[in-house]
């Protein structure tokens, strides 16, 4: 038995080693003009703004890069940042973009029109598979860089590397020719996923994935951002436009929302988004240190299948819409505003009373429903089984239908992509949920994707020549006010036809440390990066 005690001693080693562990100490929050911002997501894979479109990607890009234009958080109007002027021609098809003198990259290279054109061509080149490729599908010549093939076949190699629609005029001027007129193009240029890459980066983008050469208010504090670490930034003195107040910004990635919330309560970080699990408790957990966004920037729908004759009558759809108690539903969702139109609050051209059939009226709904002949079969409500709330929401709507309209309701849970696939093939049985967050703050972005025939997010496969025609007119109307009037006509038609029912807009809630006041605009939402700091 000589072996055994030796083995026993070996096994006891870890227990003894523990005696060496030190006492706990917690990191103190960064004081003064520095900010530690939690991003509740997986760490970015790259700091190349052209190859990222998640909200985490855009948040970091906002610090490292500067957009051509931005929405003024105070007025909601577009204003120039890097751009000196952005001018459409008479039809809104060709856009001339002039950039200001004096901007440069953080490696000293002066920023020119060539940087934009070359970067955008690189992004639009299909085989690179960069995330913001789709943005350029509106530009003339995009298709040559992105050949398609029928399902199951390999797409041929692109025939070009540059879009014919992009042209450098001089060092500070370039033009963008679109496939068709698009009056809202100027608004789309505030997207940070369009930021230019320096010449050195364009030669070997992969090499710079973790050591970006930015052109915005902040630069990396270290030579390289190492995977698994916080992104540490310091103010860059070469930036020529207005910068946020913080001298140092740290982005920390914590995927678990509840964990991030606890980090904030422990005082180790300056700002964190409130996870859905804390919607009911954050105001008491962090009194005086919370804020709720004034704007929403999104809309959620209850979607009818246009391919199902059972839902063909518009009156029937009106009745279903009126049977929904939006206030109660928004309350269930938590931190949500009931929708009263197809456009989110804060967007230019939004009318608070656009929808005639969005007010809850049980008696009128029942009457209208019966007059329209009722529903010939049970209502099937599809929900995304991949989310924790899908089933709850489906049952909440379902109960309103049963109680108000007296119909039978069935619930079907499926993964989100399967629901989308079935709907794309027009073979989904029943109604479903849908949602949209705008890519750029324009009334047009709340209409075209959902209601144009073959729109990108045409959930109900709605097609109406009149809508297409009015959208095209709005797109080629260079006068912003008149364009908005045309889009409002589209909204009216879509609310009357009601291929889908607007339900609610989600608001964001944030916690921010004492003395840190994130910007909260009714047009651009909450931005921790643009915090006012008085500590």
């Amino acid at each position, binding site marked *: 038995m000589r072996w055994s*005690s030796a083995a026993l001693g070996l096994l006891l080693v870890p227990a003894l080693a523990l005696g060496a562990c030190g006492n706990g100490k917690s990191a103190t929050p960064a004081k003064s003009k520095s900010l530690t911002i939690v991003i509740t997501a997986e760490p970015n894979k790259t700091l190349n703004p052209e190859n990222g479109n998640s909200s985490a990607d855009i948040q970091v890009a906002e610090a490292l890069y500067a957009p051509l234009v931005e929405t003024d958080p105070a007025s909601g109007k577009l204003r120039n940042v890097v751009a000196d002027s952005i001018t459409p021609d008479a039809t809104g098809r060709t856009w001339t973009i002039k950039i200001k003198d004096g901007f440069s990259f953080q490696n000293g290279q002066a920023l020119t029109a060539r940087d934009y054109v070359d970067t955008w061509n690189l992004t639009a080149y299909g085989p690179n598979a960069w995330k913001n490729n789709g943005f350029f599908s509106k530009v003339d010549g995009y298709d040559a860089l992105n050949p398609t093939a029928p399902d199951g076949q*390999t797409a041929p190699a692109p025939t070009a590397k540059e879009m014919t629609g992009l042209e450098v005029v001089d060092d500070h001027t370039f033009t963008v020719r679109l496939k068709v007129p698009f009056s809202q193009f100027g608004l789309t240029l505030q997207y940070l996923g369009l930021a230019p890459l320096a010449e050195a980066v364009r030669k070997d983008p992969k090499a710079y994935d973790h050591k970006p050469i930015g052109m915005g208010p902040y630069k990396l504090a270290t030579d390289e951002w190492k995977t698994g670490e916080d992104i540490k930034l310091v103010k860059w003195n070469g930036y020529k436009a207005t910068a946020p107040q913080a001298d140092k910004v740290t982005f920390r990635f914590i995927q678990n929302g509840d964990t991030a919330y606890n980090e904030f309560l422990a005082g180790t970080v300056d700002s964190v988004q409130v996870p859905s699990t804390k919607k009911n408790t954050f105001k008491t957990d962090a009194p005086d240190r919370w804020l709720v966004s004034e704007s929403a920037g999104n809309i959620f729908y209850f979607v009818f299948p246009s391919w199902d004759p059972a839902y063909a009558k518009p009156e029937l759809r009106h009745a279903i819409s009126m049977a929904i108690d939006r206030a109660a539903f928004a309350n269930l969702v938590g931190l949500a505003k009931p929708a009263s139109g197809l456009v989110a609050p804060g967007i230019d051209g939004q009318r608070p009373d656009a929808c005639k059939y969005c007010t809850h009226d049980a008696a009128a709904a029942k009457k209208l429903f019966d007059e329209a002949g009722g529903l010939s079969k049970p209502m099937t409500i599809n929900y995304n089984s991949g989310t924790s709330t899908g089933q709850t929401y489906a049952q909440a709507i379902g109960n309103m239908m049963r109680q108000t309209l007296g119909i039978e309701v069935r619930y079907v849970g499926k993964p989100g992509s399967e629901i989308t696939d079935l709907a794309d093939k027009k073979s989904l049985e029943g109604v479903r949920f849908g949602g949209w967050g705008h890519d750029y703050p324009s009334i047009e972005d709340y209409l075209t994707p959902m209601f144009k025939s073959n729109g990108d997010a045409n959930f109900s496969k709605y097609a109406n020549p009149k809508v297409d025609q009015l959208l095209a007119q709005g797109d080629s109307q260079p006068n912003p006010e008149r364009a908005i009037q045309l889009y409002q006509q589209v909204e009216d038609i879509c609310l009357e036809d009601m291929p889908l029912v607007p339900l609610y807009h989600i608001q964001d809630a944030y916690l921010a440390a004492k003395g840190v006041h994130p910007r909260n605009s009714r047009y651009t939402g909450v931005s921790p990066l643009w915090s006012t700091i008085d500590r």
Partner: protein
Amino acid sequence: MIRFALRRILAAIPIGLLVTLGVFALVFAMPGDPLRELAGDKPVPPSVLAAERAQFHLDRPLLVQYGLYLKDIVTGHFGETFDGRDIGEQLRLRIPVTVKLALLANAFQFTAGMLFGSYAGFRRNGAVDRLLMLATLFVLAVPFLVLAFAAQYLFGVQLKWFPVSGTADGFPMSYLLPAMVIGLLSFAGLARVLRTSIVETVNSDFVKTARAKGIGEQRVLWRHILPNALLPVITFIGIDLAGIFAGAVLTESIFNLPGLGQFLFQAIQLKEGGVVVLLSTLAFISFIVINLIVDLLYGVLDPRVRSG
């Protein structure tokens, strides 16, 4: 002994292939298109989708995909995840995190298990023994999630003894709290095994003989009872250490430790067959290796099973 080890390793290969293929088939059978799921409601240009599909072999049939992933693993060309992370780099960063967590958690589990188990074994039906029984039931009843968040809130947010999450404070500080939570939830099982084993050993003939020979009580305990009673415990620890991977998924998420558990969770969420196969291969290999070590150790400790 070398022949024994070689035989075990060779026998493990077909089992490993079968297991990973099974796991891969399960991921493959999960509904939904991962690349579209990744994009959410936003449209993806067909050209980008096609380029990505080809990059991840998603346009091939199941067995071909599996073969290609396996080839990638064997040749060390791990490639990238769906959302563009370098898998080799991820492994380099993540393996140490999970190993540190596992070892520390096992140290806690082992220390507490040994102390309580042996005490309960020698003082059967005493206060500690009953408490242990109660603790086992309690641990089985409380979900891990609840205990982990409660510990995080109490020791991290309120008392500030430990960091709330993350690895910024390094080893061991960042790992102590999660390891203790895992240890707390698993020591009771170990203690019960040890207790039973001690009870059996105490009553066995060779212990009675030792006592009859007039050997001192301390010597009987340390030289005769414990070494024999520890044998089943070693098996238990082996299985437990290999199984830590499963527990790591939740722990690493709650305490924001960028280890293999988080990686596995993301891969399953994104329906990323290649990564799941790679990680389950890793888990399988570590399982085989640890169990092999346990078996070899067993032979060392117990001459009766030392066979050719």
